[in-house]
């Protein structure tokens, strides 16, 4: 028996498919490209600076943390780039650059690396970064510029469509607001000509990116469909069948961005389909409740955050039994144990 040193001896399987973590992250970046490009067109070149700052500070803080914690480097998996980019798309175009950088540092250092790095964080890092900025700098984080505004991002500050809907008093209807010119038209909503975060406004670009992720099988349709479907259902009831109101609620705020790009984050969503549906429905309910009853026009970030925390419990109740496991016969009442 000769031992052939040239032969590799390893456990089966001896084949691997071509999907890699880096490839998945790259796909997410590609899918975010239309929304990023739309942000540049709608809000001007300042958005590029914001994206550059969030991505660069995400990479830098990841590099420094893994060096200090003496962990293997993870820069090449592109996950920090994704976090930085998603955070940027969640910020107003007028955000001071240093604030944007703080958001990235919080996302990477506190939320991701402190909890064990890639795949171990229990809430979405970009989302947490946004929320930290939101509660720390409420003024800067609610300074919405209208898209395609003349005179740069500092020029006009307006209320978002959702904020307008929130203040919808008795007697005024959605169509009246549109007619008065205070609400953008539906077509403008779809194309992104309205105030809002850099990346959330252009629904067309987001859907394009979401479709790309679905086609590439990076995400499963369960979460976005359950999420958007639940919001649609509740808003249909809340608006007493007003389809106009429904359309504004679906396209307004960060729902599409959140449903396709943030709620679907692997580390912070359930890994099986049943759990994903429950997760999506939960996000939808909380979003709707915040929008309808809370003192805020928008609820996507908080709803995903809350559901992120519930993921271990969702996974526990939706745990699938191995193939063919027999259902335990129900114990009859009064039966001796």
């Amino acid at each position: 028996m000769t031992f052939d040193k040239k032969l590799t001896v390893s456990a089966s399987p001896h084949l691997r498919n071509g999907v890699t973590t880096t490839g998945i992250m790259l796909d997410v970046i590609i899918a975010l490209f239309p929304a990023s490009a739309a942000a540049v067109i709608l809000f001007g070149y300042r958005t590029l600076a914001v994206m550059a700052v969030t991505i660069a500070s995400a990479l830098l803080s990841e590099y420094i943390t893994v060096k200090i914690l003496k962990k293997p480097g993870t820069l090449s998996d592109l996950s920090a780039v994704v976090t930085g980019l998603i955070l940027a798309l969640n910020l107003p175009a007028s955000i001071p650059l240093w604030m944007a950088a703080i958001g990235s540092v919080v996302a990477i250092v506190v939320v991701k690396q402190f909890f064990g790095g890639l795949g171990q964080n229990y809430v979405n890092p970009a989302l947490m970064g946004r929320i930290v900025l939101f509660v720390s700098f409420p003024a800067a984080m609610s300074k919405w510029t209208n898209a395609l505004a003349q005179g740069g991002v500092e020029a006009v500050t307006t209320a978002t469509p959702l904020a307008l809907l929130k203040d919808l008093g008795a007697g005024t209807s959605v169509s009246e607001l549109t007619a008065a010119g205070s609400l953008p038209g539906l077509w403008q909503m779809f194309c992104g000509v309205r105030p809002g975060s850099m990346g959330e406004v252009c629904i067309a670009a987001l859907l394009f990116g979401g479709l790309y992720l679905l086609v590439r099988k990076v995400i499963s349709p369960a979460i976005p469909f359950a999420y958007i479907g639940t919001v649609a259902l509740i808003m249909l009831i809340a608006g007493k069948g007003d389809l106009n109101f429904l359309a504004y609620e679906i396209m307004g705020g960060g729902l599409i961005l959140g449903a396709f790009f943030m709620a679907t984050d692997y580390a912070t969503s359930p890994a099986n389909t049943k759990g994903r549906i429950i997760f999506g429905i939960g996000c939808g309910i909380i979003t709707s409740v915040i929008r309808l009853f809370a003192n805020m026009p928008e609820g996507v970030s908080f709803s995903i955050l809350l559901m992120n925390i519930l993921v271990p419990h969702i996974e526990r109740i939706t745990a699938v039994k191995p193939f063919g496991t027999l259902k335990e016969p129900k114990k009859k009442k009064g039966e001796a144990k």
Partner: protein
Amino acid sequence: MSLKRTGVIRKAAAKPRGGVAVAHHKNTADMPAERLPAPPTVILPMQQHIGAPCEPVVKVGDTVGLGQLIADSERPVSAPIHASVSGKVTAIGETPLPNGVISPSITIESDGEMRLFEGIAPPKIETKEDFIKAVRDSGLVGLGGAGFPAHIKLNTPPGKEVDTLIVNVAECEPFITVDYRECLDNSWDVLSGICTIREFLGIKNVIIAIEDNKPLAVEELKKLAANSCNAKQNIQVTVLKSRYPQGAEKVIIHAVTGRKVPPGKLPADAGCLVMNVASVAFVARYLKSGKPLTSRSLTVDGSAIAEPKNVRVPIGTDIGYIIEHCGGFKTDPYKLLMGGPMMGLALIGPNIPLLKQNNAILAFSANDRRTKTERPCIRCGRCVKACPMLLTPFAIARFARTDNFEKLEPLGATACMECGCCAYACPSGIPLVQYMRLAKSMHSEQEAKK
């Protein structure tokens, strides 16, 4: 689609849950098995089956004929071993098996005559017991790769009723084409084997399950089914979508009958008997000739093999000898496999004897190296989606790594059949099958403690 309209198929073959799509690479599909010249020596390990190893019944220096019994065991789960060449027993020693275990073995030097042992005669069979004994005497083990003694499988445990025989022609592992060739080249043996097994075991339904990437074999089997024993006892051919691991016992039972075999249970619990097509054909040949299992067909393929082909060789032939007769290595192999690329064993060298259950030898050059850098789990759920046994491999891997049996136990890792789908699909390159094995060994350790 046209296949479904003929009415022979009872059930539209739905895409099975889980599994992965692997490239088929059935390069040797057009090549009938070629009989190789007898090797100068054969080494017959005493452990060529699941169960108790055999004890030699010959001595060094004995002259043996082809097909003569040389080793047997008293234990129920075992299969006797026969001389695969005629010649002289030169050594009773030890030899490494593909999985690294050292097994006692008998070495026979061939006299080059392949002289049949005088005692060989077709077995006389009247009852089911005779039939099962005959199958045991033939030394047959599952030829599809598992190597489970066939007589144990055929002997339905009391209290269980088997009403369906599934002939497994799925051959879902890439590269391997021997089962496909068996259908085309020995179709009458297949039919005769089916009829015999059905008759002696009193089985009502016979389903031949085949993947849709073998249209010629489907046609041949349908012709066969149409000509079968009699009109009432028809044989059904079910065409399944090609998907790995369609040929796994529990998966194929579910695909063709809709029945589920619970974890830890046997196919008989679902009323099914699954047999590899080559095993079925062998039963027919054995009953006709009385010649036990001494040779088998296998696929020799892979990018490092100069002339890929299907060959028929005596059991115990040195793998290096087989590769030499397939033109040797075209390039330096980086990996040498016994079995398919998904479940096969990587060998430490070419000097290992061929076992009864080995259906392929594959050698790959370094260009075909498929590895990924191992990164942390991102919980993407691809392993969960790929697992045909509905397990959660990433969680099992995590608790196996952290030695947390309390959390591991409810995940049911023992249902894992190590098909490799999870590791194939993992984007982070985590060796999930190894973790599954670790988890399974943790289960058996705890079992032993009880």
